[in-house]
């Protein structure tokens, strides 16, 4: 290294010292390797996941109308994914968005539950630096009443007609079920996953995790689980201060398979559940309806991976709809399909869906809507009774404040 003895004269520097090249090469190679490892790690499959959860996107109906919750914005960026809450009044003609009235950043997603026939209960899952969940109820989406905060991250929410609410909370120490009623200003622990697993019905199931909750019309409290014991389905009923298994007894063909409750609800006076059945040969979905005598009626299996699910929810006939990814386009977008099961005894009906469908809804008798989302645009596609093609309907531009949750 020299001082400029003759600054006016310039010459090429020539070859640099070999250690510079070696260090630079080593640093570059290390950085490259680290980046490649990170890329490979992020692109690698998640591996075996024991417990499956139903997707958050869904639709449900109350007496006042139909509600649909869908993610919009930049879906690959959690803090720029904003969940929207669309409402179609019973005697209305258009969907309107009410996510803005929730008064909270909803990047974590929304859990919906119908409180009887009239009102909707919504839990906003925490995101970013928030660690508890805001809960509110409404009948029309315009005015909201706050409900006591849930101190944790809810996985499932249910509400009864008499005002009793039920929430499944995820905690590092284990899931737990909380209950609250309108007279109470706090949530009380009803049961923990550990306690349920230790109970007599729980031991038969050996639950890996609790997955869903429901409240029956008569106030019955239901909890669904992912059973660790093969061939056993975990639906539990809280009855006179104790838990009992509500079945169902899976048929012999599922005797060696692991059964998980993906979603659970009460249809009138008996539980209805969507099960995911996993075996070495694949996965399938099975719907089950409990009868008044406690015996279950199971649907035929729908062969698809629960990880491909986009949305599940109830149909007006007491059945289930399932939206799932069924392929991928060259531009990276997915093809979605819909499978409908219209009630006990029915068979799965498959139909194509418009690209980007996040959920389907049933806003009027006989009518099915597919809510398709693309960034800030929600397009409603309508399938009228007897029609074979989706007709493009309402297009809604959502004014998303990107970056507001960062």
């Amino acid at each position, binding site marked *: 290294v020299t*001082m400029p003895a003759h600054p006016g004269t310039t010459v*090429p520097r020539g070859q640099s010292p070999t250690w510079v090249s070696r260090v*630079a090469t080593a*640093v570059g190679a290390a*950085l490259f390797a680290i980046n490649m490892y990170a890329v490979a790690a992020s692109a690698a499959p998640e591996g075996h996941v024991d417990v499956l959860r139903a997707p958050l996107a869904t639709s449900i109906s109350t007496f006042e109308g139909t509600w649909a919750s869908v993610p919009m914005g930049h879906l690959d960026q959690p803090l720029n994914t904003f969940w929207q809450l669309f409402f179609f009044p019973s005697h209305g003609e258009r969907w309107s968005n009410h996510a803005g009235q929730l008064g909270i950043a909803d990047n974590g997603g929304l859990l919906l539950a119908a409180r009887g026939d009239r009102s909707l209960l919504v839990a906003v899952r925490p995101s970013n630096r*928030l660690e508890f969940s805001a809960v509110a109820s409404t009948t029309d989406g315009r005015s909201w009443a706050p409900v006591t905060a849930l101190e944790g991250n809810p996985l499932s929410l249910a509400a009864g007609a008499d005002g009793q609410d039920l929430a499944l909370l995820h905690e590092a120490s284990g899931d737990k079920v909380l209950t609250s009623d309108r007279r109470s200003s706090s949530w009380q622990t009803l049961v923990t996953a550990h306690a349920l697993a230790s109970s007599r019905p729980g031991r038969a199931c050996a639950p890996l995790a609790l997955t869903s909750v429901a409240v029956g019309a008569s106030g019955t409290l239901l909890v669904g689980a992912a059973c660790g014991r093969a061939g056993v389905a975990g639906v539990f009923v809280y009855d006179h201060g104790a838990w009992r298994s509500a079945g169902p007894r899976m048929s012999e063909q599922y005797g060696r398979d692991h059964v998980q409750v993906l979603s659970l609800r009460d249809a009138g006076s008996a539980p209805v559940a969507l099960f995911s059945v996993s075996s070495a040969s694949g996965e399938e979905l099975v719907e089950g309806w409990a009868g008044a005598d406690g015996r279950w009626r199971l649907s035929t299996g729908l062969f698809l991976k629960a990880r491909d699910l986009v949305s599940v929810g109830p149909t007006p006939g007491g059945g289930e709809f399932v939206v799932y990814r069924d392929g991928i386009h060259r531009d990276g977008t997915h093809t979605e399909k819909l499978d409908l099961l219209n009630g006990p005894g029915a068979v799965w009906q498959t139909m194509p869906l418009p690209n980007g469908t996040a959920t389907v809804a049933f806003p009027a008798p006989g009518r099915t809507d597919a809510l398709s989302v693309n960034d800030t645009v929600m397009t409603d596609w309508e399938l009228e009774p007897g029609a074979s093609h989706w007709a493009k309907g309402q297009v809604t531009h959502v004014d998303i404040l990107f970056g507001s949750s960062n």
Partner: protein
Amino acid sequence: MAAQMAQTPQPHVLSSWITAFEGFDRAHGFAVNLFVVIALALLGLALLAGRTRVLPYAVAACAVLCLATWVLVQDLGFFGGVGTDPNSMIPVLLVIGGGYLGMTRVPAVNRSAAAVTRIGTWQRPKERLVAWWSAVGRRPAYLLHSVIALGAVGILLLGAAPMAVASLQPHAAPILAEAVDGAPNATNFVARDFRLADQYGRPVSLASLRGKTVALTFLDPVCTSDCPLIGQYFRQADAMLAPSLRQHVELVAIVANPLYRSRSYLLAYDQEEGMQHLANWLYLTGPLQALRETWDKYGVQVEYEPAGAMIGHSEIAYVIGPRGHVRSVLESDPGSGTEAQESSLAVTLAAAIRSAAR
């Protein structure tokens, strides 16, 4: 970032470029990332190797990459965004250019003088100055180079260095807070009274706190970004106060959410942020009308935002002296939310509290 920039009002030709690139990036994010990583690695190797045959191509490629980033991501640095990021590619390009000149225009070594000009060999400052002046006399452009180099060093020392040093300090000076929020405004006007209730249901008015120094702010208990940080820097400021002073100080927050304002939400916030352990922490709420009146009295805007965004509200703190006069008004945007940033805000708030308590 590109998507945000594209939403900024600007000539269509610019927004269309950025939108097109953002769409391409979304569709082929892995490929774009891979290309950039490989390009940066190769360019880094080329620059560090210093081969004269390669350098011009490497610098040209750097220039293309920097300019592409400046135009397609940083939106020319002035149409969108705030802070220093949007223009960072231009200084980077200048640094690379400067480095290139430094590497390729190295003067020939005067062997006879080398013995006395080796680094580490003592050379009097006067001799250095004479040599430099001689060089300027032979080549006037050398003066310009020297001025630019001195300017760059000056900018670094005056701007970046103190910020970098402050960022490394566990108890940062107010410089970080002032960079984001400006200096506290010293004032002296009568604070408006309010009548609300704390998180435990006890009635609290500002008049009831007379005789104490009050640090007052407005927090949304279900805010997912800034409010948790504001609570933390209030807690840190409290810890910086001498015990004898702390017993005469109240940290007060008023809820800034028209929907989630019940005690259960305030208590949930306290638990989340560990505020329940502070003896002098009050989180106030009340009927919506009373809250609205209080927000208005303190110039705090609270409004619903569309499409699942959190409630928008002013981030401001008032320090009220024992006689009920507002002595300082502080913007309380926690900025990046780093530990140093929070510490800096806490230092600023603690200083304002000490000043108001006198």
